[in-house]
């Protein structure tokens, strides 16, 4: 079957989708967006977390057909998503991340050596991505995309989360490497930066 939906602000269609297929499979295997990770396919690890109509969900547990006509944001579109939000969240137009950009997306933080060239004109990271790099919250990185999407949504909802709020919001995301402390640091850092007045 064919599924039409919006991915990272742009309309897309996926063809030859099997009826029992998950959104995660469609994103990774049909749209070439491997940012959302597949670790468990049973909702346990959160590494496949995306926003579905704004709500964080495990994309491995959403049937592809259920996203018809709906909006999905993946980690590849997170930088643009965060930018649009901070500049007032205007819809459509030049906003969003094209599939080609998203497929070629790679991290270009201030700390990264890969800053030159690249396909994407969107060279910046979302604040939460930069904070993960700065706080050393990324080791093997497999859990990172899901944690970024979940953390970004937390800070959108709750700009000044307590440690308990952060733990609760990230309780559906497993990390086998970091021991979570650096991840906590990263979210605290992003929250602190977010609350600094402009230009400081």
């Amino acid at each position: 079957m064919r599924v039409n939906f919006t991915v990272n602000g742009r309309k897309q269609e996926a063809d030859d989708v099997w009826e029992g297929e998950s959104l995660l499979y469609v994103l990774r295997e049909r749209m070439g967006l491997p940012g959302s990770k597949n670790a468990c396919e049973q909702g346990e690890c959160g590494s496949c977390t995306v926003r579905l109509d704004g709500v964080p969900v495990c994309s491995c547990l959403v049937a592809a057909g259920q996203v018809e006509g709906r909006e999905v944001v993946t980690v590849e579109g997170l930088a643009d998503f965060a930018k649009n939000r901070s500049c007032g969240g205007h819809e459509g137009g030049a906003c969003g991340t094209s599939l080609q950009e998203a497929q070629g997306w790679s991290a270009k933080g201030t700390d990264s050596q890969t800053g030159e060239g690249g396909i994407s004109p969107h060279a910046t990271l979302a604040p939460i991505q930069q904070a993960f790099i700065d706080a050393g919250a990324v080791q093997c990185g497999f859990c990172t995309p899901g944690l970024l999407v979940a953390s970004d949504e937390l800070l959108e909802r709750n700009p000044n989360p307590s440690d308990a709020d952060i733990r609760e919001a990230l309780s559906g995301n497993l990390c086998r490497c970091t021991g979570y402390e650096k991840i906590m640091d990263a979210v605290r850092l992003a929250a602190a930066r977010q609350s600094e007045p402009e230009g400081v």
Partner: protein
Amino acid sequence: MDFLRPASWEEALAAKAEHPTAVPIAGGTDVMVEINFDHRRPEYLLDLNRIGDLGEWEVGEKTVRLGASVPYTKIMEHLRGELPGLALASHTVASPQIRNRGGVGGNLGTASPAGDAHPALLSSGCEVEVESAARGVRMIPIDEFYLGVKRNALQADELIRAVHLPKADGPQQFSKVGTRNAMVIAVCAFGIALHPETRTVRTGIGSAAPTPVRAKEAEAFLAAALEEGGFWENGKIITPSVAKQFADLCSAACNPIDDVRGTASYRRHAVGIMARRTLGWAWESYRGQSARTEGVA
């Protein structure tokens, strides 16, 4: 496989009548796991996400009509006052991502003895509104809904539309034993609701019998003891011997098995502990509430 996408409730009922083997999918947090792992290959998937009113709820004078697909997150955020037991239970389900998708309709559809909504539903004394194209609406009392391990009273052509829960008339509590806070299937669980209006107490036990069950003898014993001692009026602390007898009768209502999550005897023991604790918490808030109302009067 075919993917059916009814745009309205009537279309969904018609589709279910035409294809009784179709598997409804709401949040997908049970169904997709089975499909991803090839445990289930339904001929038809019947998507309920496009039926908006399944995700809505209405707070009436006496009851809350909770749409089958209202996600747990919404129950926690919006219905804590009306449905405290269910809100507490909802908060213990899995993780934020799962709670954003899964709901009570799916929990009832799966009818696992470990489903966290069940103890709260049993202790509230709710009714499940189901409907078929052929026979219309049928209200199933929750006590008649669970028939066996993962078996419920739904007919092949029926869908769950809503659950009608009495608004809490007294304190409610929920407790669950697991290895950690998030993402845990209950080893066993316990729900209690005090009903001062009828001077009754209702319970619900999860994961300690083939189906979710009530501890009816324990309920009857406690109601009689509370009545006899004038506890509802005098708001005294419940006598430890009464609490213990209640806990023992709750343990006795279990019919558990040994499995990877725990042994039968541990489950029986833990249900007794949870029964005593949740009764203590609920009674404390009842005493607090009645003390406040007396102060005002």
